[in-house]
């Protein structure tokens, strides 16, 4: 297993958001975390990158993350695209990509070429301020930036948020492509269970800070309560 969480708890001040979450992500797969508002999806990702007060055991590639801070976690090869996409709105598209490659040494040229092959518009608009991109483009830029980091694990927080359905499917198509062609392991958090279950190999359903259900996406899609609560049929 590339990533393992065991009994992870997290709190914001006096409010406990995670009550012992355990989940696993295997190398090379796409895993999804589903759930409603306040279920603890975002907090799960924040616990992994240590941007929230956490306890419990988190292992990455067999090694405990312990007390590693967000910078050190990023350097281990975990790219976290946070809520709001973490775009540096005042900087240009190109500068955002350069920041993605910040932890890496040596030539990022090859990766840049690869990124441009997935997102063809980037090369044309490299000098544009990132804040002036559309929501969909900003989400793609966030993916591109994360890819420049050359992570072993990509944490994605609600890539569909605020985007039109067509754009959402485009984004998930690219996520799937990155997963299949580049071997990128992805842990994605989503409210849009429908599209997430299509893209993911494995999924976890969070309810009130705990894993309520888990299994292969294909099985979950057939599951009675998932269909009623999250898929809406």
């Amino acid at each position, binding site marked *: 297993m590339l990533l393992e969480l065991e009994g992870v708890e997290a709190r914001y001040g006096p409010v406990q958001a995670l009550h012992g979450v355990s989940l696993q992500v295997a190398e090379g797969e796409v895993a999804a975390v589903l759930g409603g508002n306040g279920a603890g999806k975002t907090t799960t990702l924040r616990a992994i990158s240590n941007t929230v007060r956490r306890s419990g055991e988190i292992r990455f590639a067999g090694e405990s993350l312990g007390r590693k801070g967000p*910078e050190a976690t990023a350097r281990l090869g975990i790219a976290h695209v946070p809520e709001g996409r973490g775009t540096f709105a005042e900087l240009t598209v190109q500068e955002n990509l350069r920041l993605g490659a910040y932890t890496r040494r040596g030539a990022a040229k090859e990766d840049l070429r690869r990124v441009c092959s997935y997102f063809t518009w980037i090369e044309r608009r490299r000098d544009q301020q990132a804040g002036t991109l559309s929501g969909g483009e900003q989400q793609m830029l966030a993916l591109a930036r994360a890819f420049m980091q050359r992570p072993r694990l990509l944490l994605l927080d609600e890539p569909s948020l605020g985007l039109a359905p067509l754009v959402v499917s485009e984004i998930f198509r690219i996520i799937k492509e990155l997963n299949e062609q580049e071997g990128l392991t992805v842990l994605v958090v989503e409210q849009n269970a429908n599209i997430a279950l299509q893209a993911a190999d494995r999924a976890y359903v969070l309810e009130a800070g705990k894993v309520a259900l888990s299994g292969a996406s294909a099985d979950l899609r057939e599951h009675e309560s998932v269909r009623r609560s999250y898929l809406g049929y």
Partner: protein
Amino acid sequence: MSSVEQTFGGAGGHVTALRRLLGPRSTGPAVVLLLAYCVFLVIGSLKSTQFAQQVVSGIASGATFAALALALVLIYRATEVINLAQGEMAMFSTYIAWQLLAWGVGYWGAFFLTLAISFLGGIGIERLVIRPVERGGLLAIVIVTVGLFLLFDGLALRIWGGLPRDFPPAISGSPIRVGGVAFSVQDLVTVCVTIGAVILLWLFFQFTKVGLALRAAALRPDAARLVGVRVSWMLALGWGLAAALGAIAGMMIAPTTLLSPTFMQAILLYAFAAAVLGGLESPAGAVVGGLAIGVTINLLGAYIGWIGSVLRLPAALAILLVVLLIKPSGLFGRAAVRKV
């Protein structure tokens, strides 16, 4: 330069870089106003050699205001406070240079050694006294900078005494005459050194990996951490650069004002005015603001007898007041819009 630029390199980047340097949107009227002012200065200089001399010495003092204002902006962007001790830190740096010179180090040796010491000192200050109170809020940091002000003031007085001392110019020599206008050598050196430092700093921010990380850390610390930027070290680096800039300003000013523990205090006020005039968050604004204030108060002092040399500072602050009444965010500042 990272390889990303090499792939992306091209002429198009410079135009946008310039646009970005001057600040986003709504700076159009400010630029027009400044251009008109420049035209006025050029025509005046062509008509009268005395006017030209006043403009040049105004640019020289303005360049030092600009350097100190830029130091304030660097720290403001990183830590979100005005560093009240910036002037006293520069004063202390200048004393270090004086001491090195007194020990027989050559001028440029002392100059660069002082820059290095100030840079490390700035980092040390951030680590030792700013970082521990960071969580206490902005007011706590402001109080700490007041404490630093008093500390450096007292230390300088204790070590070097209160008597004004001579500080040598970088190059001494008789004024250079060009077309009837006499330029003081020290003024020219001051302009070249400070503007050179500002340009180097700009290149650093624009084209190096660390410079980019520094900007990212100041803009969005949370997101910067997630791409692996060590944000707290970046803030310390900002303090180091600010301290070095202040040292440059101090060493350039000291030959004309004499070196004493209080010699940077008035300069700091001019630098505040320059930084606020430029919009506080805009490095380019701080430089333009510094130059504009330097030239303007020099002309006012020379041509309006009643202002003379004693009322220059109030005149500078009056200009600032008028500009802020018309454009509250400064010439190149962004209007304070926050998403909540």
